[in-house]
């Protein structure tokens, strides 16, 4: 009862909350996920650590093991915490958590998912907006408007090519150049839907729908492989040229001696992964400590070592020099995405141009 009362009181608009927290001694210990997530008092870290010690760990829904080095470092830092993972693709995870919340099964604490996988959980009221002292260092674009998630890693698709088959001076340097007859039948794209659809979306935004339809006449091969696997086929010489190649993969593979080149003409679509808090997280203190850590400079540098770019202003990367398009921030993203998906299917899959 008291808890509900506190939660109700704490749901007041932002500035007021802070004032209440500081002035009212009885409220110094925030309780409830929402209160903890928005607490900005000077003793925030102390409260989180004390709470986390009681909680003992957290459950994270994520896509893969990329963040393992970050988890290891986090567990080193907080030896009394254990991070458990459940992994599936972003879209599958979104569906799964939706069904779990509908059934009242609320075990998940935090998410590290591609931001397109966070859109539906946000709209279904599964994500809890949060504050963190690390927020200040992040570009405005990288923070979801309602603070439901913060982008912690990103990569960009551009025009990749095999330098053995196509020396850099001969490679197309603009998207318009991809329409030249010499590239007909020579290009491939990743058919993984988010990569393909977001790429089509970027082309629509920057070059218009007609450009996409003209590209469709270039007989582009669809490989149902992730961007990274496509980069591997490119390394092997099977694919010569593709506009859906990630800069991170090219950099990592070129280091190992792969003959890959990459251009990013114009605004690049950002494939961004965000970190988010579950509205009914059973371990909110531990989850927030984890979120803080992923956003921290230390965490961001670890991500960078794994090949991702950072949206943090004090961690410079390739992304700093690029004009970036955060598609999920667009007001009508869901509707636009459906339109792009349809265009992609018509033009590249069914070849109805």
């Amino acid at each position, binding site marked *: 009862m008291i808890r509900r009362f506190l939660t109700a009181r704490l749901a007041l608009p932002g500035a007021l909350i802070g004032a209440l927290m500081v002035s009212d001694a009885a409220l110094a210990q925030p309780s409830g996920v929402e209160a903890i997530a928005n607490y900005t008092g000077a003793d925030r870290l102390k409260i989180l650590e004390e709470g986390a010690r009681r909680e003992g760990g957290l459950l994270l829904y994520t896509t893969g093991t990329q963040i393992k080095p970050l988890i290891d470092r986090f567990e080193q830092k907080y030896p009394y915490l254990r991070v458990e993972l459940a*992994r599936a693709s972003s879209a599958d995870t*979104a569906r799964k958590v939706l069904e779990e919340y509908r*059934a009242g099964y609320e075990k998940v604490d935090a998410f590290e998912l591609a931001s397109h996988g966070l859109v*539906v959980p946000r709209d279904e009221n599964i994500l809890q907006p949060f504050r963190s002292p690390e927020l200040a260092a992040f570009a405005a674009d990288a923070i979801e408007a309602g603070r439901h998630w913060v982008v912690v890693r990103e990569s960009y698709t551009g025009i990749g090519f095999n330098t053995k088959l196509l020396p850099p001076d001969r490679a197309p340097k603009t998207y318009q150049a991809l329409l030249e007859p010499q590239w007909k039948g020579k290009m491939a794209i990743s058919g993984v839907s988010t990569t393909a659809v977001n790429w089509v979306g970027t082309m629509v935004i920057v070059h218009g729908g007609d450009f996409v339809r003209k590209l469709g006449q270039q007989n582009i091969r669809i490989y149902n492989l992730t961007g990274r696997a496509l980069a591997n086929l490119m390394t*092997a010489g099977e694919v010569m040229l593709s506009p859906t190649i990630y800069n991170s993969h090219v950099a990592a593979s070129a280091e190992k001696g792969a003959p890959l080149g990459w251009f990013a003409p114009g605004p690049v679509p950002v494939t961004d992964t965000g970190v988010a808090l579950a509205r009914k997280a059973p371990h909110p203190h531990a989850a927030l400590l984890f979120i803080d850590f992923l956003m921290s400079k230390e965490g961001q540098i670890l991500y960078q070592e794994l090949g991702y770019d950072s949206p943090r202003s004090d961690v410079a990367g390739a992304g700093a020099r690029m004009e970036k398009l955060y598609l999920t921030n667009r007001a009508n993203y869901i509707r636009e995405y459906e339109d792009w998906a349809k265009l992609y299917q018509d033009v590249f899959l069914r070849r109805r141009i």
Partner: protein
Amino acid sequence: MSETALATSAPWTERLHRLRSGEAAIYLLLAVVLAVVLPPFLFLIRASLAVGSDAAPRYGLDNFIAVVANSGAELWITTLVYALGSSVLAIALGVSSAWLVARTDAPFRQVAVIAAVLSLAVPVIIKSIGWIMLLGPNSGLVNVVLRTVVGGEEGPLQLYSLGGMIFVEGMLWTPVVFLLTLPVLGAMDPSLEEAAATSGADLRQTFQRVTLPLMRPSVFAVFLLALIRALESFEVPLLIGAPGNLHTLTTAIYESIHTGFLPKYGEASALAILLLLIVSAPLAFYYRLTGQADRFATITGKGFRPRRLKLGAWRRPLGLWLLIIPVALAAPLLILVWASFLPVYKPPELADFALLSFTNYRAVWGRPETLAGLTNSVLIGFWSATAVVALTFTAAWLTVRYRGSARWALDVVISVPLVFPGIVLGITVLIQFLRTPFIPIYGTIWILVFAFLIRFMPYGMRFCHAGMLAIHRELEECGRTCGAGALTVLRRIVLPLALPSVAAAWLYVFLHTIRDLSIAILLAGPGSQVIAVVILDLWNNGEVPELAAVAVLMAAGVAVLGVALMWVSRRAGGVAT
């Protein structure tokens, strides 16, 4: 042979009684299977009819109309040609190889068996990559070599074509067909072939006029499975069809599920139901063909010693034929073995020997989830395979032995999950157990076992059914006459005789559960992560060399299992003779 059955028939009163208890057992099993299969099936139907938002759907035929409007004739033609072509190819290669191994003195028999078992180990997705590396139009090894002869910029072999899809899928299924038919042929009474030989028939005539008709029901059962499996096969159309702009029903299902923010089930479910209708046609035909089980029994009470047909001058060339399975396995696998030692995949060159290292193997083994995932996967695989085999062995026996329409219903219900798209089955099971918290298996390995039981019962059924058709009724009647009850007969007579098929079914389910991605990924909770997650990670990361290392390690693990299987089969073979 049916004369022998009549001669040993029991008094009609006893027969009636047995029929009744048999039918009761069928109904009981039918009820159990329905309880398991019906929820996902109803979900599929509901999803196919639901239109509009998730929260407040309305119902109509919109999804079906959209599917038919979107698919076009081309999609259906591609699907049917691909399914028929690849299953015919797999049957032609698999059955002929099985016959050579089981009935003749052709060389390389052991090699073929080992290769067939091994090939089950390597995930299809990895094998497909292997084939792309071999036959890819630009850098495929075979094409590179051929171009030095014929010239040209691309090809000459076009992997991304209908022919290429049929070839790869046919090659993928040949070992399964081989393993399915081998036990049946191995247990066949050779006196008929010997009689043909004595009557002056040559090798081809014997095969065509005696062997082939005898094994027709079993072969047809296998063909049916291959056909259905090809209709619902997914990886080859996805990886080899799509780059050539060839689409099948399953890739259409994949597209409709995956283009959106959430997996969408409407059109996918409508397609799945259409697929179910297509699949039920050959199933009905199959039932008409095998209605008289006794006619096809090849394991009888008559004592015989299998004698191998002497191939004479044909021994060598037919031995080479037996190398098709090992080569079909070795070709993509060798190139993967090569890749597994490289830092970055590239077509083989002599200079690359300097680059080879064990780095990828160490990386795979060093993953913290490899060991935990492996333990969970083996447990899940063990229980899923055991559950599937226990259920389908009983069901196959009942459907072969007893009359009545219920047996057809039982087989149909068991076969229904064939068409469930993995993700649809996964989500139904997920919802089902979220809403029944009094069955607390959500997030444990048991929810996975349950889902895999549904997914693989159609395969178990076909394996066991093929094996069961070959066993003559008179052997069981002997047991009955000696005073054994139904369960004793099942345990002491039927099971040992059908063991090769049962063991093959078990191994098939075990290996497939271990590498299944769509269901395992969705249902695995934090405490039940499976090895498939490692494959998914590597797949998403697209690191061919590390993925290749996983494939090689899995093949090595299965080699051990395969030896065990052959040992079991040989022992069982000893019982049968």
